[in-house]
């Protein structure tokens, strides 16, 4: 059963005698219905276009389920952190796609193409800056969102699975940070990546093989940067999009929690009644 439409969106019943169709005039004559105004036509056209899609997809229950959920009392600004993280991700995705139009993942050309984005391409410095600083913003927002979930107890039954998905998303986002850091290919990003790969190599048994996988060989080679680029813009973002879908589905399905301080209030109310 999908939730009801909010009051403002419900269709209004017509007032008696307001439809104009076949209304009785004086002396038993009928008055012609008034001509539809431009506004009426626009409303009617939009409604019929939406109706066309709705008839073929049956989307309405899903949209209603998604958009018109009941939220608990006490919902406050802390509940917007997940959406904020989502928008940080969208910003990264959009700026990343456009940066990819100018960036060349080649060890001899990566630095030049990245500095061309900054110095020559129109708004390049701004978009690259959005992507660079946005990555930090996204990671900070994830941790704040996680802290909110933790301190509000919103990870408890039945939301444990959503916490697990969220942790996987955190790890994937950190992986985005790791793989993206190499791409400007300046001294700092090169050496930071060397150190990061060697930290992976320090794991017993699998570590050395993991490092070989990341470098595509025993040494930092010609395909290391393309490998990082492919992980950064294809594999990991794909996984993130899929898991964000699952994350938001579960939020919709299970609803949000009330802030913890509201529970105390309710208990007081119960004792009063008894």
């Amino acid at each position: 059963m999908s939730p009801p439409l909010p009051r403002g969106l419900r269709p209004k019943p017509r007032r008696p005698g307001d439809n104009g169709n076949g209304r009785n005039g004086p002396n038993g004559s009928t008055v012609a219905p008034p001509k539809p105004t431009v506004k009426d036509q626009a409303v009617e056209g939009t409604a019929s276009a939406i109706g066309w899609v709705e008839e073929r997809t049956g989307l309405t229950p899903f949209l209603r389920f998604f958009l018109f959920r009941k939220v608990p009392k006490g919902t406050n600004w802390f509940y917007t952190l997940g959406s904020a993280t989502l928008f940080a991700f969208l910003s990264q995705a959009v700026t990343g796609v456009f940066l990819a139009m100018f960036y060349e993942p080649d060890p001899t050309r990566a630095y030049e193409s990245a500095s061309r984005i900054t110095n020559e391409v129109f708004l390049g410095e701004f978009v690259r800056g959005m992507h660079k600083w946005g990555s930090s913003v996204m990671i900070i927002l994830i941790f704040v969102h996680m802290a909110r979930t933790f301190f509000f107890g919103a990870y408890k039954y039945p939301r444990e699975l959503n916490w697990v998905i969220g942790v996987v998303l955190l790890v994937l986002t950190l992986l985005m940070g790791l793989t993206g850091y190499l791409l400007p290919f300046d001294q700092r990003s090169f050496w930071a990546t060397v150190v990061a790969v060697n930290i992976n190599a320090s794991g017993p048994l699998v570590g050395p093989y993991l490092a070989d996988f990341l470098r595509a060989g025993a040494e930092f080679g010609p395909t290391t940067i393309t490998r990082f680029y492919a992980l950064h813009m294809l594999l990991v973002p794909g996984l993130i999009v899929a898991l964000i879908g699952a994350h938001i589905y579960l939020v919709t399905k299970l609803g949000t929690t009330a802030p913890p301080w509201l529970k105390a209030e309710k208990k007081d109310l119960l004792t009063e009644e008894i």
Partner: protein
Amino acid sequence: MTRRGLMTGTALAAGGIATLAFSLPALGFALGPIFEDTTPTVWQDVGPEDDFNEDTYVPRVINITPEIGDAGKTTIYMRAFNPRRDKVIEGQDPQPYVAISTRCAHLGCPVRYIQASQKFVCPCHGGVYGFEGQVEGGPPVRPLDRFYTRVELGRVEIGDRFSLNSDLERFAPRDPSNHLDGLWQYLYPARPTT
């Protein structure tokens, strides 16, 4: 077996085979570089024998990965074999020249040789190595790596890298951070790529 069961099984099997048919080759393609050694031994000339002496290190730049420009170059420190300081390990032919890699055995930052103290110092996390590359302080887990050396027509050439444990015994090249002493060495095996 029912007819329905057979059809369900066939559909599932066909889907499974189709999935494996693309995913296994793709996975093998992605993991392939772990299992092949794509770096052939190349001997690189670093100068005439007269350039190097027994008591101090001279920096040289060599190419580890030629295709990638400056990122593939690395600095090494060279000196001649010093019979008074360098011990000869039984069963291992002594190298005519000592070529020390600047890759720190902690996490791979470039170390620098300080002549005044005869030590190698890493800028990242404070690793300190003695004259022979042995660990004297900080987080590194083994001595600095070295390269094979040989002399051809009076000129010194540099070959493959190798790693050493704290007794300066030779091992196949390892990544920084991989221990080579005691039981630790079995947790960091030699890899097919080297």
